[in-house]
């Protein structure tokens, strides 16, 4: 069967897997952003605390994804749960690091006037520093998202959702009729999704960056 006929026949399945792939990445990145920004906000003030947070998230990133997923099975079973946990773990480093960098990069004069005007430390972080750091944080989120599209394919090993299933079954059945078609369709799907998300980030950045920083 040639590739176009394969696509035609399996189009609905492929779309569903792609949608799941996008959903699991989006959900994981959202969770990781919430966690990563919070960790950044809590640790940026102390070089030591933020250093530990960054080192730990960097260390987590070195765990082979297959091993991490396998380790999560006894705790979380199969399917979405271990997939999301693993993806969140992998996306923390760029988000935490960029949050810390962003919060620290705010102009000292801005911080001094905030303090001199009577903003509390918390008000300064939420009302001044985070909005100003947002473009930097968003860059971290974008890097994480790109990374997750690739890593999410491994989730198929723990019966997770997404295009990984397509690739995996292609690789498992190498030599059989549709093996190559499967692998190619899955891989192309992942690449296209990643490109689409990356493109969306350009728009997201424009929409969410405070207007005063764009003028």
């Amino acid at each position, binding site marked *: 069967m040639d590739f176009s006929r394969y696509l035609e026949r399996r189009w609905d399945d492929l779309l569903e897997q792609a949608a799941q792939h996008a959903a699991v990445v989006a959900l994981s990145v959202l969770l990781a952003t919430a966690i990563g920004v919070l960790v950044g906000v809590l640790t940026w003030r102390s070089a030591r605390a933020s250093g530990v947070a960054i080192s730990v998230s960097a260390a987590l990133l070195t765990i082979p994804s297959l091993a991490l997923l396998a380790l999560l099975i006894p705790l979380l079973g199969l399917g979405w749960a271990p997939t999301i946990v693993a993806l969140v773990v992998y996306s923390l480093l760029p988000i935490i690091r960029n949050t810390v960098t962003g919060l620290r990069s705010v*102009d000292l004069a*801005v911080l001094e*006037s905030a303090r*001199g*005007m*009577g903003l509390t430390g918390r008000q300064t972080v939420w009302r001044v520093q985070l909005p100003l750091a947002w473009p930097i944080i968003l860059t971290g989120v974008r890097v994480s998202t790109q990374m997750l599209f690739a890593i999410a394919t491994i989730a198929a090993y723990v019966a997770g959702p997404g295009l990984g299933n397509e690739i995996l079954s292609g690789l498992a059945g190498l030599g059989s009729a549709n093996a190559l078609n499967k692998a190619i369709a899955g891989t192309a799907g992942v690449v296209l999704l990643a490109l689409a998300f990356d493109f969306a980030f350009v728009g997201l950045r424009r929409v969410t960056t405070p207007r*005063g*920083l764009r003028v």
Partner: protein
Amino acid sequence: MSDIKLVNVTKQYDGQPLPAVDGVTLDIAAGELVVFVGPSGCGKTTTMKMINRLIEPTSGRILLGGTDVMSIEPNELRRHIGYVIQQIGLFPHMTISENIQLVPGLLGWDKTRSRRRADELLELVGLDPVAYRDRYPRQLSGGQQQRVGVARALAADPPVMLMDEPFGATDPITRERLQNEFLRLQAELRKTIVFVTHDFDEAVKLGDRIAVLEERSRIAQYDTPERILATPADDYVASFAGSATAIKRLALIPAERLPGKPLNVANGLPTLDKGGSARDVLDLMIRWGTAQVAVDGGKAVDFETICGLLGDDHGR
């Protein structure tokens, strides 16, 4: 109205052999503009920052309207003290109006009131509210940003203002304009102001009184600009005041107040514009080579009058 009293205020940093500020005692009357002037690193900014507790004194007391600042929660204290710094520090992600409304917002003013207040203040500092309220700091020139900085500090109508070299980063022309506007503003508002600068001429121009500070913020002299120029307390103050102090003193005397002979018709005398000082009179005399200058249309001021202004110490 709030007066400020510093009583034996000292700041000693850990690990430093000498205190940064050593036993400063100083009274600032309500509605008075006092300039702290001294060389870089003399502790003038540190002294100022202890008033709003950006820096905490090691010992001594600072009283604001009779209340010890250490008994007031720092953020609450700072919301009632205007604060202007050289680098301005406007919030780039907020509009001009939002920048000004921030402190009123923290104090719980309702939106309409703080919005109206922001417009009123923009007007006061010479920026058209309609044109500027919705702009962002990056769209304004340095001088305009500094005006917004002053407006923002005035937002909640604080009785006390602290200003740390607010005009130091602007070009000479803008600086002069900002200084003049600021004097006009202060004549109207009568805030109690502590103004820090290393520019003695700026101190003379703006201050009701000047505290000349030396190392460790020790007060070398605390007096009116006229008296510091006329009778500097010691060589340090004299060297700080620089040369041509007699001329600088003339600049403090408005030409309108000079005695003069009545003048009926313009008889070819050079004429001084309104708002000039005795120094401007002298300048005209030298430029035109005359011993008389017409002031305010109605009188002629003599060279002898100018020479007599400074009493008997002009040969110092």
